[in-house]
C-alpha cells in the first residue's frame, strides 16, 4: 500500500537505540524528514515494555501499554526503528488491554497507526536519493518484524535504491539469531550456540556489511562476528538509507 506522509509523526526511539546507538535515532529523523514527515520525539518516552511482557510480568507490561497509548494517541502515526518494539505496540498492546473497556479501543487505534520505520518509509513511497555506498551487504530478517509485521520486501526495496550497494543472499536469512531479548542473558549458552551458526552464515555470505532492522539482533550478531574475528561490519538499515554508513559501525568507537 502507498500512504501519504502524515503531518505529525511520533518517533518512538526505543530504549536500546536511546542508550546504545543514538545514530539510529538521528538516521531515522533524517530519513523521515526527507520523506516529508513532520517528526516529533515525545519527551516522556522510555520503553515499550517488552522486557516485562516477555518475562511474564503482565501487570507491568499492561501499565507500560497504557502509558504509551496515552502518550502516542495524539499523533497521526507512530514510527519505530525496530520490528520487535513496533510489534509490541501493534500486536501486543491491543491484546494486553483487550479486557479493559476504557483502554481497548484506544490501544487498537494506536496499534493501527504504529509502523516499523522501513515499512513506513516504503509505504510512503520514499526512496533514498543520491545515497551511495559502494559495498556488499547481506540482510537478516529479524523475527518479530518478519512474523508479526510482515516486513520482508520493504527493506530490500529501499536498499535497492542505494547506489553501489550489492545485496548478497544470506543462507537462513529468516532464522532467529539467538538474541531473544532477555533470553540472551538468561540462557547464554543456548543463545551463544545459535548466534555462532548465524555468524557463520553471515561470514559465508561473503558480504562486507550485515544489515537488519533491529538493534538488539544486530548487537548480538555483530558481537559474535567480532568475537569470531570476522571483519563483517554491522549497521541498522536506516543508517544506510540515511547516508550515515560512512560513520562507525556497531562496536566501533562512537
Amino acid at each position, binding site marked *: 500500500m502507498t500512504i501519504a506522509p502524515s503531518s505529525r509523526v511520533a518517533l518512538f*526511539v526505543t530504549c536500546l*537505540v*536511546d*542508550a*546504545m*546507538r*543514538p*545514530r539510529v535515532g*538521528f538516521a531515522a*529523523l533524517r530519513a523521515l524528514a526527507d520523506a516529508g514527515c513532520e517528526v516529533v*520525539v515525545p*519527551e516522556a*518516552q*522510555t*520503553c515499550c515494555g517488552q*522486557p*516485562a*511482557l*516477555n*518475562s*511474564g*510480568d*503482565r501487570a*507491568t507490561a499492561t*501499565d*507500560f501499554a497504557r*502509558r504509551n497509548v496515552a502518550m502516542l494517541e495524539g499523533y497521526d502515526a507512530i514510527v519505530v526503528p525496530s520490528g520487535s518494539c513496533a510489534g509490541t505496540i501493534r500486536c501486543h498492546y491491543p491484546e494486553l488491554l483487550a479486557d479493559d473497556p476504557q483502554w481497548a479501543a484506544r490501544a487498537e487505534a494506536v496499534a493501527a497507526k504504529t509502523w516499523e520505520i522501513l515499512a513506513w518509509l516504503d509505504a510512503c513511497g520514499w526512496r533514498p536519493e543520491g545515497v551511495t555506498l559502494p559495498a556488499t551487504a547481506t540482510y537478516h530478517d529479524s*523475527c518479530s518484524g*518478519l*512474523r*508479526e509485521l510482515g516486513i520482508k520486501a520493504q527493506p530490500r526495496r529501499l536498499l535497492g535504491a542505494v547506489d553501489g550497494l550489492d545485496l548478497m543472499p544470506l543462507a537462513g536469512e529468516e*532464522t*532467529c539469531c*539467538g*538474541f*531473544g531479548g*532477555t*533470553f*540472551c*542473558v*538468561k*540462557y*547464554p*549458552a*543456548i*543463545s*551463544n550456540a*545459535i*548466534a*555462532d551458526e548465524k555468524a557463520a552464515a553471515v561470514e559465508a555470505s561473503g558480504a562486507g556489511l550485515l544489515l537488519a532492522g533491529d538493534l538488539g539482533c544486530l*548487537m*548480538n550478531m*555483530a*558481537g*559474535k562476528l*567480532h*568475537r569470531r574475528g570476522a571483519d563483517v561490519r554491522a549497521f541498522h538499515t536506516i543508517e544506510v538509507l540515511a547516508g550515515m554508513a560512512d560513520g562507525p559501525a556497531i*562496536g566501533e*568507537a*562512537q
Partner: protein
Amino acid sequence: MSRAFDARVDAALADRQLKIAVERTAGTAEAKRGAAIGAWPSFAAARERAAAIKDHVIANLGAYLVQFEAAATASGATVHWAATADEACAIVVEICRKAGAKSVARSKSMLGEEIGLPHALEAAGIGRVETDLAEHIIQLAGERPSHIIWPAMHKTREQISELFHARHREPHAEESIVAMAASARRQLRGEMLGADVGISGANFLIADSGQICTVTNEGNAELSLVPPRVHIVTAGIEKLVPSMDHAVHLLRLLARSATGAALTQYTTFYAGPKRAGDRDGPEEMHIVLVDNGRSAMRDEGLAEMLRCIRCGACMNHCVVFRQIGGHAYGGTYPGPMGSVLTPALDGLAASRDLPNACTMNGKCQEVCPVAIPLPTLLRGWREKSWREGLEPVTLRSGLGLWAWAARRPWLYRAGVRWAIRAMRLAGRGWIAKLPLAGGWTGGRDFPAPAAESFMDRYRKGER
C-alpha cells in the same frame, strides 16, 4: 535457570555427535517440508480448515467421545476410560494379566511414553518388544525418546551401528543402513510374532465409525495389531475427529509437515477385533481413552494446544531444539509443543525453564499445520510463573527496578546516563569483558554505547 536444566543444556551443547545427529534429521525434514508445502498452493486454507476441525472437536469433546464409544463398542471393541496416567497404565497391565501375557509387542506411541507405559509393563514383569526401529534402538540403549516422530534422532547411524554390534544376536556384517535394518529385523521379527498382546497408539480416533487410524513408515503398527491374540490401543482423548473425511484432511497436513512426504508408507484404518470369517486379527480389542490433564488444559486456556497432531514440525524448525536436542527438555515431549505441554503434565515449578528458554521468534507457529499460537501459549506459562513467584528473585528485582525507573522519564534518563558511563569505563569500542554481563560477553563482544543518549542529545537540539 534451574541447575538441572542448566546441566542438561551444557551436556547437550558439549555433545558434538548430538549436534550432527539432530542437524542431519531436522535439517532434512526442514528442507523436505519446505518443498512439500511450497508445492501445495492451498496450504494456508488447508491449515485453517485443520485448525477449525480440531477446535470443533475440542469444543464438543463430550459428544464425540460418547459417539466414538458407541461405535467402537458396536464394532466389538471394549472401551476403557482413564482420567490419569496411573489409571491408564493400571488398565493396560490388568488386560495383559488377564490375557496371561508374558510379552507385549508395542508400536511407538507418544501417549504411551507420556503415561509411562514402558516402565509400568516392566514393573509388572511383562516383557516388551518395541516394534518401531527407533524405539528398539532406544530400548537397547536404555534411553528415552528425544523426538516425537524420530525417537532415536539424537543418535548418529554410526552410534547405532556400534549399538547393534554390541547387542544384536546376529549383527550386520556390512556397514549400510539396509544391513543394519536387516539386523534389527532378525532380532525382532520372531519376538514380534510371538507376543501375546499388541499395544499401539492412534493418530486419529474416528467418532462416527469407532475406527482407529495409525500412520507408520515401517508397518510395525500393523505387526503389533494382527498377530497377537489381544490388541490394546491407548490414545489421548484429543485424537478424536468426526469422520474419516476429517482424518484424511489432517493426514495430508501431518505427513507433509513431518517429513515432507505426501503420505506415510503405511496408513491403516481399522475397527474392532477379528470377526467370524476374518482370516486374521486379534480376538480381543481394547481401547483406553486417556485424559491425563487434557480436560484441564481445555478449560484452563490451553485448548489450542489440543489441536496438536504430533508432526514435530515445531521442533524441527526451532533454533533452540536444533542446538540442544530433545533430552535436554526433560519431559516426554520436547521442542516448542513440549514446552507448552510439559508444564501442564509435570507441573510448572519443575519445568519453568521450558517456556522461558525460547527466543519467541515465532517460527514454530508459522510452520504448525494446525496454527497453534505456540509463542502466545508459552507467554501464558511465563505469566503464570511470574504470578506464582517461580521466577528468580534476581530477575524479579532487576525488572522491578527497571520498570520503576522507566515510569519516571527524568529519573530514567539519569539512570541511562549512569549506565552509559559505567559501560564506557569498560571500553570505548568492542568490550570483551563486561562486569555483570558475563552472559553476554562469555561468548560475544559487547559494543560500548555512545557517550550520550539519543534523548539527551535531542533535547540539546541535535538533529
